């Protein structure tokens, strides 16, 4: 049982319902539809006076508490699974950039910036749009999710073509 929960990989038919269950519990027990990307705007609201971040959605304390839990959850998963070994490795990307840390740093920072701007422009990310939004039947969420996937497939294959992976 311990191995099935913490060590061996979860099949999609376990991981999917588990993800939906956490979304449901956050609504049923917490009364909120979860969404991660808005919390980055909450950090901007705390540290700047840019009018965009004065909107109510960036002024809700629960969002910051929620995202504070994400690294804890990741750490728990890797600690209990016996895989916790902090370092700068990053899967197949190490091969694509020939192990160069500055190249990885640049790629991830630029990619992150597009993610941050794109999420605010689209009004959400794969948690708030693709799961919570689509589960409520939102057209905007369905279109945004199609964009996430289409943009991802096109740009990832361009990246591999350029870096020669």
């Amino acid at each position, binding site marked *: 049982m311990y191995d099935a929960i913490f060590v061996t990989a*979860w099949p999609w038919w376990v991981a999917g319902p588990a993800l939906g269950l956490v979304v449901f519990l956050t609504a049923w027990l917490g009364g909120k539809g979860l969404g991660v990307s808005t919390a980055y705007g909450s950090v901007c609201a705390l540290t700047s006076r840019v009018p965009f971040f004065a909107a109510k959605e960036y002024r809700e304390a629960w969002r910051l508490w929620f995202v504070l839990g994400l690294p804890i959850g990741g750490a728990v998963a890797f600690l209990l699974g016996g895989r916790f070994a902090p370092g700068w490795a990053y899967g197949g990307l190490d091969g694509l950039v020939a192990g160069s840390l500055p190249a990885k740093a640049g790629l991830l920072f630029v990619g992150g910036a597009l993610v941050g701007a794109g999420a605010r422009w689209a009004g959400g*990310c794969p948690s708030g749009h693709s799961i919570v939004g689509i589960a409520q039947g939102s057209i*905007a969420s369905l279109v945004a999710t199609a964009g996430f*996937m289409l943009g991802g497939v096109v740009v990832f294959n361009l990246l591999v073509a350029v870096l020669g992976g």
Partner: protein
Amino acid sequence: MPPWRFLVFGTLFGFVLSRARATDYDTIAGMFRLTDLHLMFVIGLGIGTAALGFWLLRRTGNRTLSGQPIALGTKRWHRGAIGGGLLFGAGWALSGACPGTSLAQFGEGKLVALFTIAGILAGTYAYGLVRSKLGTPAPTIRVRPAV
């Protein structure tokens, strides 16, 4: 519910993202190469499960267990969903991470996630700054108790 209790839900969400391999670069690469559809099935079943849960909540009056109204925050239609979605997808492909998984990755000990997290903050701030100069648009989340 006091806001700090959302730390529990966040921890659960981060744990599940990690166990679902959503934080794994090679799984994301497989999804965008269309060679490993694991994560698409995970997201699909996640949507189905959440939709079933929301339906049950609606049928029982949209109240939390302790009787408070539930505010899910409906996403209203706007054209930014197209451009923003595509831009986000491009960034997801370059970084192998999204706003939630980058934070979970950092907890797993994948220290490169710090660059992604810094980038997301910078991109969020830059977008807010530009939109503020152009005139602040209406918030994209509409909060109402029932859906």
